[in-house]
């Protein structure tokens, strides 16, 4: 038995079924990300004055990733338009670009995550705070070496846009027995990083999921082009709608996490 309305529109909705399906799915996705944005607002407003981080993320890198995702959106829509115009070669080209751009996005995001996981705040027993990227943390060694700086007040670490002066980053060797607490900038560090990793992590999973589907349609899934062109084109449209939604979420994530 064939699945009904994969190509021709249903008389009552005027749409093929997959399109109604993807929009219902996207509606649930809006609420999922909406709940996380709501959490972000509550955490940010509830944070003590001067203790909500600013300038912790690299704006040029975030901007580059935004441009990568926007470019992947145009290549996705171009791939669909190529299918509509019966230009299979162009479709292959544009979707290859989409997959490469998706991989670029994930690579850049991984670099950013790595930067946070190797960034440490070390509170010493004498009250001083050392902050910087780890150089050496061999458990057998009695010293920890970071490339960073000392700060007197923890607040200095929160708003990096205020304390703009030239941060002298030098190699600091700290005896392990003088360390009171040492923690990297993972999601456990504070509420800002918790919501940052949750939001961007969930978004990255969407990017990977979307890229897998697009990758399937680009490779083995494209056999349908020979047997049922319209249905294949509809599949490209559906995967494209999901991809644009992923882009749309990032359009809000970027200013919220990187800029404001």
């Amino acid at each position, binding site marked *: 038995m064939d699945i009904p309305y994969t190509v021709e529109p249903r008389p009552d*909705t005027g*749409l093929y079924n997959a399109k109604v399906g993807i929009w219902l799915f996207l509606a649930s996705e809006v609420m999922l990300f909406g709940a996380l944005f709501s959490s972000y607002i509550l955490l940010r407003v509830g944070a003590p004055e001067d203790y909500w981080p600013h300038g912790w993320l690299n704006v040029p890198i975030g901007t580059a990733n935004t441009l990568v995702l926007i470019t992947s959106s145009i290549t996705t829509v171009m791939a669909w338009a190529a299918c509509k115009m019966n230009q299979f070669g162009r479709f292959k080209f544009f979707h290859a670009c989409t997959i490469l751009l998706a991989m670029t996005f994930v690579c850049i995001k991984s670099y950013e995550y790595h930067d946070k996981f190797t960034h440490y705040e070390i509170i010493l027993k004498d009250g001083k705070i050392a902050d910087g990227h780890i150089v050496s943390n061999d458990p057998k060694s009695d010293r920890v070496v970071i490339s960073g700086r000392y700060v007197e007040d923890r607040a200095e670490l929160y708003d990096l846009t205020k304390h703009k002066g030239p941060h002298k980053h030098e190699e600091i060797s700290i005896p392990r027995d003088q360390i009171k607490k040492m923690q990297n900038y993972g999601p456990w560090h504070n509420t800002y990083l918790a919501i940052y990793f949750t939001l961007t992590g969930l978004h990255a999973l969407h990017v990977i999921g979307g890229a897998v589907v697009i990758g399937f349609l680009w490779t083995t899934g494209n056999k349908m082009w020979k047997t049922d062109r319209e249905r294949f084109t509809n599949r490209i449209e559906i995967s494209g709608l999901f991809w644009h939604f992923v882009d749309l979420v990032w359009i809000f994530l970027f200013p919220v996490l990187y*800029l404001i």
Partner: protein
Amino acid sequence: METTQTHAHEDFRQHVRRYLFVFYALLFGTLITVGASYIPFGNHAINIGVALFIASGKAFLVAGYFMHLISERKMIYTIMAFTAFFFVGLMFLTLGAFGDFPRFTVTH
């Protein structure tokens, strides 16, 4: 038959031109968002408002043109209307929650 196909192709070429225009607008919007974040408007809330306003404009372009929401069927608009209702409701609940807890109760 061939004429119909030629018309359809011409129609899609026009669509493609529109997509390219939207793409350039999105690139420009991104640069404007970054630039505006460095302008001291005097109150940080204004910076937040400007960033979200530009982001909303970009979201409209993506949803309207790339996702074709600007010329969709009634069924899709109905789904989106329900989504918008619940999303706005969620945001109002969030704002309403500010009154429930004293400020500065979330610790690092």
